[in-house]
């Protein structure tokens, strides 16, 4: 059974249908690339799945339950975590604290716990710290040594990494990565391909990846879906989608020479 199953998803903004009856699914441990020109509705799909927008029509089921009507924090608790296209960290919190916020939905200490710091809270705080450090450690020597630096002072690529680490710290089953390769140089992009592969292979995450960069999509995706004008126009392996005439017309056509 699919981990995430979306059917007939539709979202309108005034007269504009940003997402138009989109169907797709993600299986456990699978990496799905989502491609499409700017304004095709990719990020809107993410926003609907993560609860920032409510769909006008359609069904979304995740891990045996519906996502309809859930708020973003409830979606996070169900096990979906995301990153943002324009990196959005908590710049004035430390690297470790950023990751620790990710643990929020898996823990429950409240006001009383914070004030009295009983054994339960202490244990939980320790667990939060350890899980956050684990998530940072996934990036080798990149983030761990910087754990006490403020997130805002990180380099661009490290911020991207920290965003992924923060999403990992939520102990999600499914990661939604919104253009993780944006602004990276070729070397960093190669590293990213390996990294996303490792997310699946070592940690067992399912990943949905919005990406404009075709080598990255090609490098990691088990399957690819293409959107245009809010509609899904193709679905399948990278080769199949890349050969699909509608996709070439909508998207690759203009950029074929530079990407292929």
């Amino acid at each position, binding site marked *: 059974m699919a981990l995430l199953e979306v*059917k007939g998803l539709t979202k309108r903004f005034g007269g504009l249908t940003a997402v138009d009856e989109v169907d797709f699914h993600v299986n456990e441990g699978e990496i799905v690339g989502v491609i499409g020109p700017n304004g095709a509705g990719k990020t809107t799909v993410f926003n609907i799945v993560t609860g*920032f927008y409510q769909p006008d*029509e*359609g*069904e979304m089921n995740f891990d045996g339950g519906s996502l309809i*009507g859930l708020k973003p924090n409830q979606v996070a608790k169900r096990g979906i975590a995301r990153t943002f296209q324009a990196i959005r960290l908590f710049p004035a919190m430390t690297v470790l604290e950023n990751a620790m916020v990710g643990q929020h939905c898996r823990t429950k200490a409240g006001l009383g716990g914070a004030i009295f710091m009983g054994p339960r809270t202490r244990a939980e705080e320790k667990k939060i710290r350890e899980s956050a450090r684990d998530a940072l450690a996934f990036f080798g020597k990149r983030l761990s040594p910087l754990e006490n630096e403020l997130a805002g002072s990180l380099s661009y690529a490290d911020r991207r990494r920290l965003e992924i680490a923060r999403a990992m710290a939520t102990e999600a089953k499914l990661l939604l990565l919104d253009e993780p390769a944006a602004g990276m140089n070729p070397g960093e992009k190669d590293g990213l391909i390996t990294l996303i592969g490792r997310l699946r292979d070592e940690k067992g995450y399912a990943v949905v990846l919005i990406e404009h960069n075709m080598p990255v999509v090609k490098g990691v995706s088990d399957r690819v879906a293409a959107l245009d004008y809010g509609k899904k126009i193709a679905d399948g392996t990278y080769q199949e989608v890349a050969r699909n005439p509608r996709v070439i017309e909508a998207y690759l056509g203009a950029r074929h020479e530079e990407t292929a």
Partner: protein
Amino acid sequence: MRFALPERWSVQRIVKILLGALLLFVVFKGVSATIADGKFTAAAWKSLITTGLALGSLYALIAMGYTLVYGILFIINFAHGEVFMSGAFTAFFVARTLNNSGFLNDQPIISIAILLLVSMLVSTTIAILLERIAYRPLRGAPRLVPLITAIGASLFLQNTFRGLYGAKVRAYPEIDILSGTVNIFSFVVGKDQLLVIAGAALLVVALYLFIERTKTGRAMRAVGEDKEISALMGIDVDKVIVTTFAIGGMLAGAAGVLWAINFKQVDFYMGFLPGIKAFTAAVLGGIGNVVGAALGGLILGLLEGVAPALLLTGYDVPSPNQLKDVISFSVLVFVLIFKPGGILGSDEPDKV
């Protein structure tokens, strides 16, 4: 497969509906009790409405300054009430001099024009200085920072004018041609109130045309949309912002004189409450929106004029007029609960 989603009945929504029902019930009960009581005559209601309208026009005029500045810089110019006060207070001394020489009642129209000119000049100067000293260096800072500056500037201006002109409440001289009343559609309107309402209406319409029709107005709107792109399009952003403050100051100055004509007194503290009320009016109408601010001002003024009597008398509340501020702020809260963008504002959810 295609089907409509069932309506979402979240807790929030239920609370909202219950709250709305409760509110309607309370209002209905109070109003019907007041009307059944019959304590107020039709003439009394009409007089309350005129008072409210005059007050509302003044709120609307001051609210322009808030809404223009917010529309462009997204800051609450908390010191705008003081801009209003500075003009009115300064013009008082001119009025007194004119009155002592007898010129005020010999040439009332010229005199009022002089008063308006002085008041607008002072208010505009203060508004421009405020922008230059207190706000311009802070562009791009987190929003809390200019707000604090605004509070500081407000205290500073209030007490500066107290130091300059004294803490006494000063009585504005009477202008003979403005005493007495006229009958309009069976409403007895004071001539001073008429001047206030007509003057404010004229100025608001002029402002609206200015923003919609002129090149500067277009530039203002453009800067409100996106400062950087406007700058790239060859708009001098600083100049536009100064113009915005100047226009706000001018209108506040005019409002100052009209206020003094209507209420016949000025002091250094007179800007505080009208300032807050005018901001409330701007938010009520949908901040950033000129028409909304005008509408919000009128609604707020009318509410303050009529609502205490209409609503609270029904509940036998003693001296209901004391609670008029409670009503106006409550209305603000309720409007924001049910329509977060204000009456004419948009309610689009925040972009992600």
